[in-house]
């Protein structure tokens, strides 16, 4: 308690029980600005990761650069507010000026003289250490598809191409065929939950794609998916990092119908819809 008291005194605040602290403590623009800044930091760092799960999406920690960017925006906002009128501005500056000048703030001043240079030195020390991280990788997850491919020796135009099985035969049968193909070939990496977590997945970097994710097959046309399955990792353009993808070129193992049926399986099993081509002339 004594320590807490001296901390408060150091900050120039009389120590009071918590109940009255909020109201009494936040009584100058400087303290209010500090509180808003701290609150925004906590909100950005801890609060934002809670948002995606509300919409059923997986959460992830916020990258430091993004946190920094948001904080800069917050600081600019705070500065605009404190400098908005003359009196608030001078009230805001007062505690800063006091700590530099007032004889009764000598302890705080001394503490700043120790802490700030020490932090700067530590930061310099760590940034001067040699970097042993991997070189940055720039990989396009869904690179632009070619307009046509050669599939098992035959020309195939991808532009405007629909899944031919959707208008031929029984969809239920195609689903069952696709399921067989998936379980015999795709399962080991993409997993039975279709989340890219098969039992081989841990060995691969990049990790196998999750089809449950709203950012994969749900935003692609079936012809794009056909291209990716047929040509696999080796068929990726350079921006897709073809050297590291463990996705086989399935045209070496499967027929076109087998690939189209596994595509039907992927969409049905996940409940996603494929993106469709805009039909030409429809707008006119």
């Amino acid at each position: 308690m004594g320590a807490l008291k001296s901390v408060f005194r150091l900050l120039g605040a009389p120590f009071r029980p918590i109940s009255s602290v909020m109201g009494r403590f936040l009584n100058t623009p400087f303290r209010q600005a500090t509180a808003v800044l701290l609150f925004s930091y906590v909100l950005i760092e801890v609060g934002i990761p809670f948002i995606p799960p509300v919409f059923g999406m997986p959460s992830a920690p916020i990258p430091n650069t993004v946190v920094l960017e948001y904080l800069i925006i917050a600081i600019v906002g705070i500065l605009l507010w404190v400098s908005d009128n003359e009196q608030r501005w001078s009230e805001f500056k007062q505690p800063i000026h006091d700590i530099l000048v007032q004889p009764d703030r000598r302890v705080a001043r001394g503490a700043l003289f120790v802490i700030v240079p020490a932090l700067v030195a530590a930061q310099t020390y760590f940034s001067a250490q040699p970097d042993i991280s991997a070189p940055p990788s720039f990989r396009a997850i869904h690179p632009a598809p070619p307009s046509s491919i050669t599939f098992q020796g035959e020309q195939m135009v991808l532009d405007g191409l629909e899944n031919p099985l959707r208008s031929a035969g029984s969809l239920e049968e195609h689903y069952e065929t696709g399921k067989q193909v998936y379980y015999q070939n795709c399962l080991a990496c993409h997993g039975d939950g279709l989340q890219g977590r098969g039992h081989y997945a841990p060995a691969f970097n990049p990790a196998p794609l999750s089809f449950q994710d709203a950012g994969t097959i749900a935003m692609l046309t079936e012809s794009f998916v056909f291209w990716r399955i047929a040509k696999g990792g080796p068929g990726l353009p350079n921006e897709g990092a073809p050297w590291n993808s463990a996705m086989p070129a399935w045209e070496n193992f499967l027929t076109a119908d087998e690939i189209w049926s596994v595509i039907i399986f992927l969409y049905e099993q996940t409940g996603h819809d494929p993106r469709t081509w805009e039909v030409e002339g429809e707008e006119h």
Partner: protein
Amino acid sequence: MSVLQSSSPNGLSKKLRFSPQRVVLRALLLGASLLVVPGDLIAQVDGQAVYDQWCAGCHGEDGAGAGPAANTMLPRPRDFTLALYQVRTTSSGELPTDADILKVINEGMPGTAMPGWEEVLTEAERLALVDYLKTFSRFFQGDPPTPLDFGRATSGGEDAIARGEEVYQSVECWRCHGQEGRGDGESAPTLNDDTGFPIFAADLTENWRFNGGGEVEEIYRVLRTGLDGTPMATFSDIVDAGVITNEDLWSLAHYVRSLSPEEEPSVEEVVTAQLLTDTPLPQTVEDVVWEEAERFYVPLSGQIVVQPRWFNPRVDAVWVQAVHDGQELALLVSWGDPSESPDTLWTDFGGQVVTTMGSDDEGAATGSGTADQLVVQFPQQLSEGQERPYFLQGDTRNPTYTWTWQSDIAGAFESIARGMGTAARQPDSEQHVRATAQHADGQWKVLFVRPLDTGSAEDLALTAGQAVPMAFQAWDGDNGESGSQGAVSTWYFLVLGQPTPVAVYVAPPVALALTLLFGLLVVRQAQVGSGMWREPDATARAKRAAKRKQLAGMGVGVIWLGMAFGSYQNSRAGWEAGHADLGFWWAIIGGLLAIAGLGALIGTWIHTRTSK
């Protein structure tokens, strides 16, 4: 209800008997899940529909464990018609409780293809599955089984682990699991599960792959209940018979747990080779350097990209350690492998594996008994950009440079490969890599040593501080692995450590001094501005000037001495890394700085003395 409509865009869902229920349930659960899931809603879930959609692909629609994916897996998917369950809280030979079945559905079976389903299926769906699974066997029609009382775990610690090791010896766990626990015991090559498939004795050094879970309580549970359907027996009977005490069994669980790392190893993209400055480069796998050097975990998977594929790799991971001395790189690769292939004791087992995994792929293995093999792969040339050769031994445009070690050949050799299985051995005059290997207690350790720069344009030159792509491939000959049928990794990076740059010693004090100076200026400015500084008289001014000179002199002296120390460090590192010129120049600079620093200090001291 809009959810319902948008989820069946193709009219297909309506035709499939399972989908409407699922969609209705999802929609309702979405609304209700924030409150409470009513019991009658759970009752509405059709367990069979969930099973057919998500489980039948491996376990088969009839529950016999023979779905379309079954023959790409070993161990095979569970056959529910036999009602033999590994993970139970009940006595050996008894049925599992509902909670036992739900636990496996929720968490999966580590080390096998069975994943956990908590994120894909709702709780109602998983509960409905438990009920449906039980309909595959009429054994479940009787009274529900009663779980055993396992009591509380004993406290661990060294004594418990030491006692556990004695129990490990006395109840002969080593017969299957081996002396060091790596699944290399004398009985290991003879093991089959109750359905006749070959089964490996668990590698007890990888608890994150234990079927029944890897923590002490879970290991104890498996010791009490056995893993029914596998050769892993129950030890409850010998406790009941008084051969060992219940506490002994807990100690055994603590001992088994202690064989694995405290935490499941994480995968690091960069393998760092520490620069050795005081010790010589290790020339054997047993060198003490390896006890200290950081271990990097590299998980492998079956090669299922090019024909013939392999779905049952024996080597699930390798551990990599690296050091260098500025002249040569030493790379130690260790991995679990129960046999020194070809080992005739394992020939039958490997044959069974190959038959079980029977592949239609062209050129697939028909038997076992080739050599064990390890390949360390690099690009033949480093690219300017991020481009690398294809991770499976490159392609025609972009070849890889590999080190191959084989258990039936002494040493290792360098090759250039342009695609899986196309490795061409370089001529003898161009061979620079040396290797020594040791197989002990179910583990291979292979040490590769190569000069950083071989002087050959064909070989990748290694430079300190540069990230070099590196990948691994491993084969267990006694598991029927050879050619493209083995275990592989994607690319990692090898980075050779370099001497600590002088900036590390110089920059922080400089930054500190500058910040301090800036702070002093700001404060002074503020205080002068608010009229707090009186104009000093002449004596005070002179006194202050003298003091300032003294401080400046000492400050400069200390900073120069600090820089001299940094130069000394660089010089030493330079000499030890074999760069005599660097070492020499840093020594000269360091010497001059030291003289200057001392001079400044002594000069200040003399000046202060005389001016008094």
